[in-house]
Each structure stands twice: as C-alpha cells, then as structure tokens.
C-alpha cells in the first residue's frame, strides 16, 4: 500500500462522504472526527517500507509516491507534525457536532477534511518548497469555511486568500534560486536572493505585520469556531513549513540574522497585537489580536534557536489549539441570538448560557497565557528563556498579554452584568441555550485546559518527542 497516497486520498474521500451525510450533523461530526483519529494513528504507527501481516495478507507500506517526477514521501520526522495536525483536527471536528446547532458553517466538516488532505500533502511533497502551492489551495478551502450564509462579510476571507496567494511566488522563486545553488555553489548572489525571497514569502505567509490584517478581520466576521480551526491547524502547518526550511538548509540555520529577524518579527507582531487589543469591544476581534500575540510568541521562541525555545514553540502551538477550540465553541453559542460578539450585545449572557460563558473565560485566559491555565506552560517557558538574554522582548510580551487581559476583563464584566431593572432579567425560556452534548464538550474542554494548567508536565514527553524531529535546528 502506498502510504502517502492513502493518507492524502482518505480524507478527500471522506470529505465527500461528510458532504453527503450533511443532513445529520452528528453523523457528519463522527465521520470527520473518526477519520482524523484513524489518520492520526496511521501517522504515529504506520511502519514505513516494511511488510506487515494484515487480515491474513502481507501488506507493504511504501513510503514514497512519485507523480510526474515529483514525489510525496513520508519520513519518520514527519510523524510529530502529522500527529499534531490530525489530533487538532479531531478535536475541532468532534466539537463541530456541538457547534452545529449553534450554526457553524455547513461546509466546515467537508472542507475541513479536504483541508486535511491538502495539509498532508504539504508535509509529504518533495521538494518541500512546493508545499506553498498546497498551502494556497488550503487557503481557498479556508475561504469556503469562513464565509457562508450566516457570515456574509467576506473581507477577512478575501484578504487571507490574497496574502497567501502573494506569498507563493516568493517561495517558489526562492526554490529556483536554491536549485541554482546546487549547480553554482560558489555564487553568493544566489544565496542572498534565495534568503530575501524566502524571508518575504514567509513574512506574508506567517501573517507578520504588515500582512496581519486578515487575522482580526476573520476572527471578527467569521464563525469563531471556524476561525479557531484556521488559526490552529492552518497556521500550524505554515509554522511546520517554516521549521522544515530551517531543518533542511544548513546555510539558513547558520545565519544568525535569520533568527534575529524571527525574534523581531515576533516582537513586532506582539507589539501590534498588544497596542490595539486593549481598545477592543468585541470578543471576535479580541480573539484575533490574542492570536496575533500568540503567533508572535511562537516566532520569538523559534528565534531563540535553543532546544528549550523549540520546545516552547511546540507547546505554544499545541496549547493554542486547545484554547481556541474551547473559546470558539463557547463564543459560537454566546453570539447565537443576535450574531454579534460585541460586549454590550452579550451583556448578562453568562446567566443565560453559563457553560458557554465558562468556556469563553477559560479558553480566553489560556490563550492569554494566564497562570493555572494550559497556555501558561508555553508562555512561562518562553518568559524564562527571554529573561536570560532578551528582557525587553519579555516585557513587550508581558505588556501585550496585559493589554488583552484588560480588554478581556471588560468583556467578562459585560458577560456577568446584571440587568438594571428586574423586567430586563433574562428568563430561562428566553433565547437559545446550550444543549446537553454541548455542555459535555464545554466541560471537557475547560477541564482539559485547567488540568494541563495544573499539571503541564503531562505534555512534556509529547513536546520533547516532537522537538526531536527539528533538533538539528538548534545545534
């Protein structure tokens, strides 16, 4: 069996199945989540280029699929990135069943599965520069997920498509320069041009300021749950793409200016997010700025070029997904009644939807990196690293987190605000309420965040194993 082909084809086929069973929300969610789970197991356990006995037959898992001179190859170092993507997708797909009645976009699960197929291709494709083309196709799928009948403002989704499209030529041209380097290794111009092109391409792809504008716009205009999926799974794929560059090219990781650029890129991202977050009055937009700060923190951690920094990056990536999933699920329910995430429109809603409000509180605090929540583990590891050499960057991150916390505190105050007159008190029969299954999901998500906040060492083995795939980066 050709394992790359199988792992790319199965999610695509299941996307069609999920579309066909779209009428039954839970069946669709189970199909999508179980597909992601099976793919995750395959990513972790599939024996590469070995014959194994399966159902009484000898089965050989071939690790490469060659198409028109290019190949899709599954190597052992791909396992952590694949496992992360599938696990995160499984959480989101399972949660989509709980959002569904809260009007998540109808196309979310079919397009999510199609995205999974393309994400797998980004990991397998060789030369891996061509992953940029698949990331472009992922952006097109994300557009379909982000805008729909209930979320008609298309500005954010369009910006995402435009920025990702604009990044592709730079990355492909960088690849061409690198091919030239193989035949003319003594030409320094090729290396300089490749570095500049690659930097510009990654700058746009990673949504670093000034190419960040789609993040707050998408989080404000689209379904919070779908936006959370894009910020988690798609941005993680982009981050792994960047790490792969550093892993593969010695000249890139030997260039200390590149790591300095990453640190400064992260700092600018954090500063821009922090400078605007405190003035926000909508949970959706606030989520966007919090994500910007989190992406900046992850970039800063990579820029440290230390094993601990790399582990902090992976922890931040993993915990962002959990926080965003819980926050997105809670916010999808809170905004259900008037399709708004404005603090004033959600005033007093915590008394009506206590579990959704709890999810927004716990998920938001984790995204900020608040102590005793899961997000704190990654941030604390980063603060400790920065405190040694880059105190100014640590202060910028701290101030930016405080800025989000300030805006968030105003939002929470609004959520718990009591009506001024007893007549305005919401009645139990007023408006929609979370369903039982949703409540179970919200409680599990919030509990996971709190447990990981109390016992972050649970994550350590997985993060360390994932970091081993990129260990050459820090040598």
């Amino acid at each position: 069996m050709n394992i790359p082909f199988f792992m790319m084809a199965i999610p695509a086929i299941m996307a069609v199945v999920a579309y066909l069973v779209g009428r039954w929300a839970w069946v669709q969610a189970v199909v999508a989540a179980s597909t992601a789970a099976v793919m995750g197991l395959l990513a972790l356990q599939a024996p590469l280029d070995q014959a194994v006995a399966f159902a009484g037959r000898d089965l050989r898992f071939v690790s490469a699929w060659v198409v028109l001179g290019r190949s899709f190859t599954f190597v052992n170092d791909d396992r952590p990135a694949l496992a992360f993507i599938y696990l995160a997708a499984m959480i989101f797909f399972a949660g989509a069943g709980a959002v569904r009645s809260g009007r998540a976009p109808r196309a979310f699960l079919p397009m999510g599965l199609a995205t999974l197929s393309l994400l797998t291709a980004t990991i397998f494709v060789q030369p891996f520069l061509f992953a940029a083309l698949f990331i472009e196709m992922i952006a097109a799928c994300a557009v379909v997920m982000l805008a729909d009948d209930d979320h008609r403002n298309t500005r954010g989704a369009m910006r995402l498509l435009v920025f990702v499209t604009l990044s592709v030529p730079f990355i492909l041209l960088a690849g061409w320069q690198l091919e030239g380097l193989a035949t003319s290794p003594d030409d320094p111009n090729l290396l300089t041009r490749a570095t500049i092109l690659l930097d510009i391409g990654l700058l746009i792809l990673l949504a670093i300021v000034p190419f960040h504008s789609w993040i707050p716009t998408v989080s404000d205009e689209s379904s919070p749950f779908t936006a959370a999926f894009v910020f988690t799974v798609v941005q993680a794929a982009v981050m792994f793409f960047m790490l792969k560059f550093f892993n593969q090219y010695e000249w890139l990781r030997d260039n200390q200016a590149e790591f300095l650029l990453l640190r400064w890129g992260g700092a600018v991202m954090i500063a821009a997010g922090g400078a605007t977050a405190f003035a926000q009055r909508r949970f959706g937009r606030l989520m966007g700025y919090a994500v910007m700060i989190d992406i900046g923190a992850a970039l800063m951690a990579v820029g440290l070029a230390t094993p601990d920094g790399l582990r902090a990056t992976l922890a931040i990536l993993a915990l962002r997904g959990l926080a965003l999933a819980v926050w997105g699920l809670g916010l999808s329910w809170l905004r259900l009644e008037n399709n708004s995430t404005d603090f004033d429109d959600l005033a007093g809603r915590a008394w009506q939807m206590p579990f959704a409000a709890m999810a927004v509180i716990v998920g938001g605090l984790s995204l900020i990196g608040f102590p005793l929540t899961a997000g704190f583990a990654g941030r604390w590891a980063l603060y400790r690293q920065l405190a040694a050499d880059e105190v100014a960057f640590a202060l910028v991150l701290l101030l930016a987190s405080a800025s989000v916390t300030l805006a968030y505190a105003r939002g929470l105050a609004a959520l718990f605000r009591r009506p001024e007159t007893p007549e305005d008190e919401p009645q139990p029969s007023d408006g929609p309420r979370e369903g039982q299954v949703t409540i179970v999901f919200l409680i599990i998500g919030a509990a996971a965040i709190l447990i990981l906040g109390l016992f972050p060492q649970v994550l350590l083995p997985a993060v360390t194993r994932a970091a081993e795939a990129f260990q050459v980066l820090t040598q």
Partner: protein
Amino acid sequence: MPTFPELLAQLSFLAATPSAIGALVTAGLLIVFLDWRLSVLALACQFIFAGLLYSQVLPDAPQVAGVKVVVGLLICVQFFVTAQQARRPPAESPPSRSIVPTGLPFRVIAAAMVAVIAWQASLLPELSLPNVSSDVALATFGLLALGLLGLGLTEDPLKAGMFLITALTGFELYYASVEPALAVIGLLAAMDFAVALGACYLAIIRGLPDRSEAG
C-alpha cells in the same frame, strides 16, 4: 481542423510583442472598467495572449500552452457564471449603473503609469529576467504590476479574484521558463482554479440577498 501546434504556428506573428502588449492592455481594461461582462471578456483575451507567450517560453511543448489557455478559459467560465448568479438584479431594481466607473480618469492614469513602469522595468539590465525574451519580461512585469494595482483598487471578491489570477499569470509566464516540469505546471493550474473558486464563492456569498429583503 488544424491541430493546436498548427494553430500556434499560424498565430506565430502574434506571439511576440503584440501578445505582450495585448496582455497588458487587457489587464488595463480590467482596472478601468467595472462591468463584469467586459472584465470576463478582457480576462479571456488575456489568457489567449498569455497562451501565445507560453508558446515562446516553452517552444518544445506547445500543448502546455494549449492547456494553459484551456484552463484560463475555464476559469473565465467560472467567473462568468458566478457574475451572472451574484449580480442578477432584482426585478424592481433601477437600471444598472454605467460600465464606466466614476474614477475613470484616475484608473486610466494609474493603469497607464503602472504599465509604463513595467515596460521600463523590463528594459533595465538590473531587473532583466534570464531565460525569457524581452516580450515575455514585459508581460511578466506588466501583469504582476497591474494585478497588484487592481487588488489595491477593489474590495469586490470577483474583481479581486480576476486581479489575483492576472498577477499569477504574470508570475507563471516567467516561472514556466525556469521550472518547466509538468507536475509543477499542473499544480500551478490547480492553484489558479482554487483561487478562482475561492473568489467566486465569496462573490456568491456577498451577492446573497439579505434575509430581511428576501422575506
């Protein structure tokens, strides 16, 4: 009926400077006119001119130029159908606005300026593109620059999609000369399709009537 290589041979007198200028003019028309019919027509002409230029870039593989034209025309069909769906005027609505936009002088001057800059850039030795003729370099710079200018002038997903495709066509014209592998050309075509589909989807969503209006 002539085969595609024979057709290209018959049109070879158009394959150099006229095609490059034609591609620039059609990109300029996309910027100047708002009417979707004219825009789709201009884009279709642009793909034909680009196809003729591909026959210069890849003289050994004329069928690739043919595939590029076919893919481009299919993208135009996507845009055409989408525009028809998204822009269908309600029965009682007033007559549609003029095809000439209010900022016409600005658009004409901006498009002309960018086209001139692209032309000058294609002549500069510091910016010369290896492996391609000056005509292809002119089309590459021109399509990229005019596509980016158009993106800055519109918020309409359909038009933005057309400008993205215009910029990508410019890039692909050059990239085909440095990476002529079939797999890459196929992937780039798939990417163009994906961009066009994304833009068309957003145009449809944007054009949906409000629920309150729909009753």
